[in-house]
């Protein structure tokens, strides 16, 4: 189990990470989500041993890694732009880690035959059988990333790290490769940290999502937990969950917005401005027995977009909902929504 304990790191004199603590359990894939420049990559570099925390500790199975140089940590790292060795072919790139392992434990030199067998297993795993002697510079972006993945997997690392691995690829390739990575992680049971700024990737691959904002983890939960309750406007916006609207507390249990007054207790004083999450609820609960935050709102349709199997409707005030049938622009429709307080 990997654990980060109160890690602090500044970059060029400015605080970058103020207090980072989290754990990665055996076989778990966590996704580190944050805007660019939020310090996600720095966290990976510190775990890999390529950078050092100013304060705090990084532990593997309760052992502090501070004194362990990167080449003795047995971790795998996959970069956005692959970082393949341009002077080596596909086989030698994948074999690199295995050969280094051989050098490390003298006397237990890894046999050439073993290396060959392992590289071929890896090539098969990432669907590149027969690519052995190809030059990495001649491969497509997707193929290069598969090689990088195979290279990281080959020495059976204790932890795999992905730094925006699909950022440079186009959309369809991205989905394919993402599913493959997911499959491989499930199959190999190697714990993994996956860094991205793309919420779709995060929801697809993560057992648990950590949202990084202003130097600290502001949300930690499974994808469904976070989808149901993003807690803050920042997380809702970053993950594209529902609509975030402005409101004002008018009475103890009532919040006034441009879409009407909702019965909500947000633990705020009268007159305070707050932000609310408006999620479309597909199945309205039983008539008459409305739960907390359930409401109906009237929406004037301003724009209708065709989105594969449904229509995306943009309404007054920028509210976005989805429907199976397309209304006409200018229609007033009634929408069942779930409203929540955000911090």
């Amino acid at each position, binding site marked *: 189990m990997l654990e980060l304990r109160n890690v602090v790191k500044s970059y060029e004199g400015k605080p970058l990470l103020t207090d980072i603590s989290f754990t990665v359990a055996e076989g778990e894939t966590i996704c580190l989500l944050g805007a660019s420049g939020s310090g996600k990559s720095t966290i990976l570099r510190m775990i*890999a041993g390529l950078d050092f925390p100013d304060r705090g500790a990084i532990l593997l199975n309760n052992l502090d890694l501070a004194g362990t140089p*990167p080449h003795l940590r047995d971790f795998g*790292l996959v*970069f956005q732009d692959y970082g393949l060795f341009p*002077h080596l072919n596909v086989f030698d790139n994948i074999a690199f880690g295995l050969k280094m392992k051989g050098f490390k434990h003298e006397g237990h030199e890894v046999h050439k035959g073993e290396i060959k067998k392992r590289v071929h297993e890896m090539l098969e795993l990432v669907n590149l059988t027969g690519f052995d002697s190809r030059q990495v510079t001649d491969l497509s972006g997707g193929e290069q990333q598969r090689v990088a993945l195979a290279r990281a997997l080959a020495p059976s690392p204790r932890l795999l790290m992905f730094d925006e691995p699909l950022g440079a690829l186009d959309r369809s390739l991205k989905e394919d490769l993402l599913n493959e990575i997911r499959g491989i992680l499930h199959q190999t049971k190697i714990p993994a940290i996956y860094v991205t700024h793309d919420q779709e990737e995060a929801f697809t691959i993560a057992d648990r999502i950590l949202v990084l904002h202003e130097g600290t983890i502001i949300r930690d939960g499974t994808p469904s937990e976070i989808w149901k309750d993003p807690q803050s406007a920042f997380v809702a916006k970053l993950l594209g969950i529902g609509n975030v609207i402005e409101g004002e507390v008018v009475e103890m249990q009532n919040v006034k917005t441009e879409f009407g007054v909702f019965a909500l207790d947000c633990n705020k004083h009268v007159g305070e401005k707050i932000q609310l999450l408006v999620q479309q609820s597909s199945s309205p609960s039983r008539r008459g027995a409305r739960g907390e935050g359930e409401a109906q709102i009237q929406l004037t349709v301003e724009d209708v977009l065709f989105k594969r199997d449904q229509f995306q409707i943009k309404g007054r005030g920028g509210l976005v909902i989805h429907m199976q049938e397309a209304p006409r622009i200018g229609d007033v429709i009634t929408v069942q929504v779930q409203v929540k307080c955000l911090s």
Partner: protein
Amino acid sequence: MSFLPTLAGKTRSFLSANSRILLWVPTLLFLFSFFFFPLFKILALTFNLETFTDLNNLRITFHSLRFTFYQATLSTLLTFALGLPAALLFSKFNFRGKTLLRALTAVPFMLPTVVVAAAFNSLFGQRGFFFLLSSFLSTTFHFPLSTNFVLHPSPFILILIAHTFYNTSIVIRIVGNAISRLDPKLEASARVLGADTFHVWKDVILPILRPSLLAAALLVFMFDFTSFGVILLLGGSQFATLEVEIYIRALQLPNLNLAALLSVIQLIFTLIFSILYSRTINQVSTQTAPRFSPTRPAKTLTERIFVFALSLLLVTFFFLPLISLPIRSLTRLEADRGQRAEVQYGFTTDYYEELFINRRGSLFYVPPVQAALNSLGFAGITVILSLALGYPAAYALAKPTRLEKFLDPFLMLPLGASAVMMGLGFILAFGRLIASPFFIPIAHTLIALPFVIRTLQPALASIPERLRQAASTLGASPLRVWQTVDFPILSRATLSAATFAFTVSLGEFGATLLITRPEYPTIPIAISRFLSQPGGLNYGQAMAMATVLMLLTTLSILLIEKLRFNNAGEL
């Protein structure tokens, strides 16, 4: 001139095939009479029974070839010993004064050999600062002079140091570029995959840098291999490299068969090195990332010491000779004429004043300043000649036909021949005719022409047809189009090419030394003669003239750099 029909605003069709051939006539005629004909003469003399039957010829050839390889290898090693850390310094770290220091290391590469030789002489020569200091130390404190290795290096060491002074910037440029293009993720990947520092270098960094290291080594080795002026002026003719031996066998101990044989061997090696170089330099681009990784300030103590010590060393090494030369040219360190007993020290402008006086018994029949006037005259003719010949060829090469692409390497071939070899070719081909001073600018033009064509050609090719079309649809007359579109781009390139030809001619030493007559000395010839004569006044005049030449060259370099910069900004 015949290529002015750009006025018509058409690209290809304005010249018929016949008139396109006309573009080539002057340049090819020139090269055939002054390069290929002399080359043919050299070859004819080489492959002659007499050349090979004389065992002495073969022995001398073997010895000078061995010594050339020996000194070039040592020089290259020394250049790398300084150049590699410097390349690392410039590509990895940020520090105050970095741009200036980098520019300083690049200055020697452009300086004429006589200036570099004079500059080193002003430090280490018999009348140089360090030599005087070491004799002072040995007489005052009884330091043994022979052990005073640093202040008084042997001529051979001095040659190696001067070569290092010249070529370090090549290593900095080629290897430094490659280092700064190294993707830092490669090192990170290797470390995470289990490579320690040793294996990171052995298995990742060095293999990726290999083509750049090899390219830099080949280029440095080639320059050291063909070095002439530095070796002759700092070492003397006992340091018989191929080049020096050619010179000796052409003029001092005439044996033209041997000189021709040595030239051909020299040419073969230069061509081999050039081919190997262009092959390796092509690999450089494919193996490194297209962008630069950022530099950073030194962080750890080791890094700080490295940056500080190395930049101090570089400043000393590159600035000391450059500043010592002008200072020495204004310093009196010996007894006055006729007053041998009393040594006077201090500031003097005598050496400069003496340049204007035609003394009886002086080295020339004319006042030394005449050498400067000759040089300027020759340089002027070189500029006109190389532009007149370079323009039509560059124009044809800007949009070449298949046949013309085939001709291109022939235009560049003179680059492979050494200056001394050209001089020898002139002697063999034209015999007594070379008494005419006009052969000097012709030789200079041969050397400058490839560069002039390579400067003009991209500028001519870069003028986009769309620009001309846009200008004419906006109502510009053909003349206005030429004025507003063609002229501004071409004028820069032309000025740049002209300055280059001018600089080459001013500093050219090897070819001029072989074909010059005593009545028409150039600045470099005058400097070399002053240096080879005894007497403080002669020495001082060498310093003064070398200082003038250094200033002229530096100004020209600055002009070229400025023009290139503006040009790049606009295109």
